[in-house]
């Protein structure tokens, strides 16, 4: 009982807050920028996967399978250590993190894009072409707006996955929230409160994000 009271009254709850706030800001920054870039990469690669051009299709497929077949931790290590040191590209840890998220999310988003576009009835493309629109115009005005709507739920999911993936960058010393809590733990020897706070830090983003997603899904009726 006394131990429990001690835990509840622990100073660590409050003391971790500034670190949580600072770390979470960086976590969000890396996620948002990374996923946004990943969305552009994914859109281009996803459409490349639908290409009839064998070379374009093959390049996109290789990229997607390489990324999906390796852990993001290993991808971050390769980016931060192998590539930046071997080729002398001075990638700071945060940039490496953003690039890792962008490349990683890009591969998964490519499959979301491909699936979204493929889910649109073939008759839509035919109807567009039959009134004289080019295939690019049909894609832009007919297929994409409908496909994008269907892509919103899986894109939201990918955002949540990428957000959690950023915790891996603690290993390359990105000062995101997991890294800061680990530092806090090693300097104070408190283990319970900091890591509980860390869980709460992620949940405070992911739970509202999931709720918003579910709301959008219901409104879009997808």
């Amino acid at each position, binding site marked *: 009982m006394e131990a429990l009271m001690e835990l509840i009254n622990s100073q660590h709850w409050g003391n971790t807050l500034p670190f949580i706030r600072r770390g979470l800001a960086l976590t969000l920054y890396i996620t948002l920028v990374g996923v946004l870039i990943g969305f552009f990469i994914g859109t281009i690669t996803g459409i490349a996967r639908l290409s009839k051009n064998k070379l374009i299709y093959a390049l996109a497929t290789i990229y997607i399978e390489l990324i999906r077949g390796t852990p993001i931790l290993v991808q971050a290590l390769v980016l931060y250590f192998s590539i930046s040191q071997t080729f002398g590209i001075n990638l700071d840890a945060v940039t490496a993190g953003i690039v890792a998220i962008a490349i990683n999310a890009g591969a998964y988003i490519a499959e979301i894009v491909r699936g979204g576009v493929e889910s649109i009835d073939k*008759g839509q493309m035919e*109807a567009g*072409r*039959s009134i*004289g*629109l080019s295939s690019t115009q049909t894609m832009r005005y007919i297929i994409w707006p409908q496909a994008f*709507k269907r892509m919103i739920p899986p894109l939201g999911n990918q955002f949540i996955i990428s957000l959690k993936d950023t915790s891996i960058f603690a290993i390359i010393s990105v000062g995101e929230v997991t890294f800061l809590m680990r530092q806090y733990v090693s300097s104070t020897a408190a283990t319970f409160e900091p890591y509980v706070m860390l869980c709460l830090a992620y949940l405070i983003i992911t739970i509202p994000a999931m709720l918003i997603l579910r709301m959008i899904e219901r409104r879009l009726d997808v």
Partner: protein
Amino acid sequence: MIKVTDLHKSFGDLEVLKGIDAEVKEKEVVCVIGPSGSGKSTFLRCLNLLEEVTSGEVVIDGESLTNPQININKLRSQVGMVFQHFNLFPHKTVLENVTLGPLKVKEVSKDEADKLGRSLLEKVGLSDKADVYPGALSGGQKQRVAIARALAMNPKVMLFDEPTSALDPELVGDVLAVMKDLAKEGMTMVVVTHEMGFAREMGDRVIFMDEGVIMEEGDPNDIFDNPQNPRTKEFLSKVL
């Protein structure tokens, strides 16, 4: 208007069209009938290159579709197509469905496109539906919007691919009425259909297709009352 010479079309090893020769004159209404799998829809889809032609030639208004130099988008804008399953754009309002072609292909002004769109919707009896989405329409209404959408490009010829096959029986009449109006106005039409009544009444000529070839063609009354080919007889005895 349309001249088809020795048209062949294969999907992989399967030859669907085995040498079609046909002609459609200006203002003529040609109805294509035949059992399913006979290649009639494929034939129609070759007329605006929704299906790539394997060999042979299709000439529309003096331009060969099989010429690789042809601007296929421009040509398609002159050939209206109406599909069995309507294929309306569900994310656009009825009016936007009709005006998209004029706006993006012909690049007319928004006001002009809207004016054209509304007059076409009036023509097909759907003025009051201009601002709703296709999801709120019945099948017959959807098909009439699809006809208006094709007409918005002011096509030289209209192709209909089983336009009433997906409709509830009581909705077929409205669509056929719109098509009859079009025929009376002198629109050149090629209609793949199971509506034998329409073919007999409105068709200037009927083409009976089976197994990828034209088995018989001629005046509707001759075909329906006095078919010569045994396959035609067999088919008509089943559907009439």
